[in-house]
């Protein structure tokens, strides 16, 4: 049972690390602000989400699990909303790249 949970943790954390890689590549390679924004939100949400999922299999107790999920939800909410706000402030002057 524990071995299965450990396996799930390894799988999810590895997938999460992959999405961080994708986000970094997107941030460095995409030509304009808005498409970089798009790449970044994907990486953010999925990368952190998968790491959190992986760690959930190791969590001790309900409070720790709840905190892990809250970290992800808050990052998701803040990230998405802030991305929108930034997109608004970036628009009037056009993509600056």
């Amino acid at each position, binding site marked *: *049972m*524990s071995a299965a*949970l*450990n396996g799930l*943790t*390894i799988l999810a*954390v*590895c997938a*999460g*690390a992959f999405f*961080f*890689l994708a*986000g*970094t590549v997107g*941030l*460095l390679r995409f030509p304009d*602000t808005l498409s*970089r*924004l798009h790449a*970044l939100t994907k*990486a*953010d949400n999925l*990368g*952190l989400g998968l*790491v*959190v999922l992986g*760690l*959930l*299999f*190791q*969590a*001790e*107790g*309900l409070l*720790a*699990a709840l*905190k*892990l999920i*809250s*970290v992800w939800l*808050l*990052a998701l*909410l*803040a*990230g998405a*909303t*802030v*991305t929108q*706000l*930034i*997109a*608004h*402030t*970036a628009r009037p002057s056009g993509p*600056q*790249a």
Partner: protein
Amino acid sequence: MLGSSLKHPAMADFLFAAAGLVLAMVAAGLARILWGPGDADRIMAAQLLGTGGIAALLLLGEATNVPAALDVALTLVLLAAFISVAFVKGATRSEADGA
């Protein structure tokens, strides 16, 4: 949700390595702050560092058995949102100042 008292030492090593890996990739993204060109890009790079840093922190906390790392992560995520809102508000205020 099994206690980590059963945690395999190899698991701690793996999580530790994963923390390093995520941090290294995010550090590469930091080059965005160096290049700019716009404020929005810089905030985005900082946000990627924020999310990656939080992921690294969670992995590190689990690997080295520091449960308080969860509270640090919660604090970071709340304050990151606060900083981004301060940026948006400051930018609009700067326009108002100039008008």
